[in-house]
């Protein structure tokens, strides 16, 4: 597994690891349509992951809305290819809801065809692995306000 492959939800890790290896993708994100990252590979800084996820979610949202206005089903996938690097973005439905995959690949080690081929496997593996339903859990201690205030004070240099 790449040292930079990391899953927020553990069921996504193995399918993602397999995809990164087989498709030779440089960067991969598995995300929700609202831009929350479930798993990522290849990113070195958490905050850059979030920027990429926000932009990917925006593309998914805007193409979905375009499709809706054209009275078409949502576009399944789209890709852009530059001289050295390309990206592939696609959505699929799981028990966890709709998910999107953003894959960035270098043309000297991979191609759109390879990425598309192994994306099909990734989508199938994620569909099979996704948990059925979410469970309510207690998240934070009731007295988190002081820590929050301290954190925000630090952030704003107060």
């Amino acid at each position, binding site marked *: 597994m790449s040292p930079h492959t990391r899953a*927020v*939800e*553990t069921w996504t890790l193995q399918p993602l690891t397999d995809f990164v290896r087989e498709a030779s993708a440089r960067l991969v994100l598995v995300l*929700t*349509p*609202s*831009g*929350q*990252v*479930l798993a990522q590979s290849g990113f070195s*800084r*958490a*905050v*850059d992951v*979030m*920027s990429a996820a*926000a*932009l990917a979610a*925006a593309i998914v*949202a*805007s193409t979905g*809305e375009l499709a809706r*206005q054209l009275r078409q089903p949502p576009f399944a996938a789209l890709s852009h290819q530059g001289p050295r690097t390309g990206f592939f973005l696609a959505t699929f439905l799981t028990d*966890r809801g709709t998910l999107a995959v953003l894959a960035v690949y270098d043309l000297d080690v991979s191609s759109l065809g390879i990425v598309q081929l192994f994306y099909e496997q990734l989508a199938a593996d994620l569909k099979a692995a996704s948990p059925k339903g*979410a*469970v*309510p*859990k*207690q*998240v*934070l*201690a*009731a007295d*988190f*306000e002081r*820590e*929050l*205030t301290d*954190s*925000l004070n*630090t*952030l*704003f*240099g*107060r």
Partner: protein
Amino acid sequence: MSLVNFTAREITCKIVYYGPGRSGKTTNLHYIYGRVPETRRGRMVSLATQTDRTLFFDFLPIDLGQISGFATRFQLYTVPGQVYYNATRRLVLQGADGVVFVGDSQARQLDENIESLQNLQSNLLEHGVDVRAMPLVMQYNKQDLPPELILTPPELDDALNFRSVPSFPADALHGRGVFETLKSVSELVLKKLAAGSPAS
């Protein structure tokens, strides 16, 4: 919808700055970006027109550090304020955990504030969210303008704050009220999470 990783003990929440055009939503994010240390924030992403009006959204991820043992990150978004960008505004609102309504304190902008607030309610409903269930704070921006041009915070509360949510006078350009607003919405969002909302 906030994302909680119980294994790695991480929380990621989405906060949307909403309000009419030119009310100061992007200015709030610029101020936060300028004040937060580089190690605690990501790149600010702005999808704007050539004249720097927000076209799709501005986005700023910030790292709050450890809260109750969870590494807590907030994703701050703005929406485009102009009426004709409603489709993109609705898309940005998807999955929001909390909303900051940035109102323009100028008396002549009152109708725009009301219209934007109604639009927020309508767009949340399209996502199946009742505005009363959404953590919301109001910010009355541009309070630095001459008194004869603006409404006071109590007057704006009377006109806009029908839920009696926390409200803050602000001058986002110079930072007044920006921190207090962010702190308040953060508390509301995390309180809702602490109350045991479904982790998803």
